[in-house]
């Protein structure tokens, strides 16, 4: 079985083609919308996607040496994400499915991050820590679904990091050579300054930390590098702590880190320490597939299609706030 998948939830428009046998990935093409200042402007990103979609689709098909006729299904990320961006991918997927008479497979973007992570690490039933610009969640499979065991009560970790470095004037760009500006700045600091450390049960919260850190910065008393170090320490540690709580609670033996923020070396080291401490296996998705891509959508679409999941094109609405714990996962049982 071969499935083509389309990703367009935020700043990446990606098309992937996968097959149900090794080497699995037949094509992986993507373009990224990079704002010249500020964060992602949804409409600007969507316009950029429209300009590039056909090119990316053609390149992916030619890399896979296939035509749309040869695939068994069209998968598309219908959410969660930014509405205008989601609609570009959804429109193209609906058109392809209708014109070529292929089943259209709805894919939840968060579930796709988990499934590609499992494919690449070989993990079967991990505790999942999903960290990206728009998402911060601790999940684990239980009775048919990925259940949310903890999440941010306000802003996501990536969003928090981006906002902080932007407000103190060292970004954009937010990431240089795969390293986030917060990590760069924090690597130079060493004095820990007390900041609000918020863990509520298995949830975290970053809005208070952001306000307090910016207040410290504006007071002009502290070295920015020490503030960065302290901010990073508090933010990362709270995530690792709730992950540890998740492990203690679910008794899972594998710990899988997915999403764009998984690239941070310091965070990775903290998770390595945690995995040794609790005697669990650690899997961190390689940066190429930790960030948004079409391959993960295609792969999850393939798993779903094998279990008869598809949607009529006229009913394939985008869902900006689609929670992963509302999606049945028939391929896990």
């Amino acid at each position, binding site marked *: 079985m071969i499935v083509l998948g389309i990703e367009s939830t935020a700043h990446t428009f990606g098309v992937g083609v996968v097959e149900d046998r090794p080497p699995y990935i037949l094509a992986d093409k993507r373009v990224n919308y990079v704002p010249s200042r500020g964060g992602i402007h949804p409409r600007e990103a969507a316009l950029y996607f429209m300009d590039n979609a056909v090119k990316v689709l053609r390149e992916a098909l030619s890399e896979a040496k296939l035509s749309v006729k040869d695939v068994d299904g069209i998968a598309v990320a219908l959410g969660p994400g930014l509405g205008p961006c989601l609609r570009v991918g959804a429109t193209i997927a609906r058109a392809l499915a209708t014109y070529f008479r292929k089943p259209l497979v709805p894919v939840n973007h968060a579930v796709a991050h988990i499934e590609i992570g499992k494919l690449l690490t070989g993990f079967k039933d991990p505790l999942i820590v999903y960290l990206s610009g728009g*998402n911060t969640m601790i999940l684990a499979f239980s009775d048919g679904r990925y259940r949310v065991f903890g*999440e941010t009560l306000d802003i996501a970790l990536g969003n928090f990091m981006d906002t902080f470095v932007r407000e103190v004037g060292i970004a954009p760009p937010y990431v240089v050579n795969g390293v986030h500006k917060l990590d760069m700045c924090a690597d130079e600091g060493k004095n820990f300054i007390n900041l609000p450390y918020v863990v509520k049960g298995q949830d975290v919260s970053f809005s208070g930390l952001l306000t307090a850190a910016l207040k410290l910065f504006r007071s002009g008393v502290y070295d920015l590098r020490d503030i960065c170090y302290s901010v990073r320490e508090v933010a990362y540690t709270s995530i690792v702590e709730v992950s540890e709580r998740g492990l203690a609670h679910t008794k899972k033996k594998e710990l899988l880190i997915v999403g764009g923020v998984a690239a941070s070396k310091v965070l990775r080291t903290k998770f390595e320490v945690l995995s040794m401490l609790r005697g669990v296996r650690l899997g961190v998705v390689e940066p190429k597939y930790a960030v948004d891509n079409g391959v993960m959508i295609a792969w999850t679409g393939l798993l779903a299609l094998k279990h008869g999941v598809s949607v009529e094109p006229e009913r394939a609405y985008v*869902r900006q706030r689609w929670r992963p714990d509302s999606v049945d996962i028939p391929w896990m049982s």
Partner: protein
Amino acid sequence: MDELVLIASGAEANLYRGRFLGYDVVVKHRVSKPYRDVKLDLMIRRDRTLTEAKIMLLAMSLGVRVPTVLYVDLENSIIVMEYVEGVLLRDYIGLVDEGVRRAYLELLGVYVGKLHKNDITHGDLTTSNVIVSSNGSLYIIDFGLSKISNDVEDKAVDIHLLMRSFESIHYNMSKELLTYFLRGYRSVLSPNEVNDILNTVKEIRLRGRYVEERRVRKS
């Protein structure tokens, strides 16, 4: 104190069982976490140990059953408390029939209501932090994230966490459990207080990054 036996290794503390002054006790030792900055680590462990011990004593004085605190060592982040023989509410819920379930959930509602009425929030209220003891009493444990707070937000977080433990572990009876719990909870707090708290729970749930229900701005 003689031989200690490790009985549980939780997320932030090791629990040992032993004898102390002739009592059957649990020794809760908050261990240092090598993944955090040393200064942050010391601060977190000391603060949580102190708060936990203080609030357990306070809870007890309000008639909420918690293990009796016998000794506190702040420098080493250690609390020695009464050992409660029993089973976690989390495991107990599925084993008993509806009447028993209702009685315990209502009692839990009363206990949490008493805590909230006195501005104590638990901070990690789940069915894994409640013990049904062998003699049938209900104990609330693990006050490590608790605090004294009159902020409706903190009380709402307690309810939100408890609801989520219903939804994630006891998903096929979560509505039923919540109904019983609220019956006890409402018997202690005034209708206005309960409404404020439950409205804030709703708000918190909508604040999560991705929720299906739309946020509607109040005009």
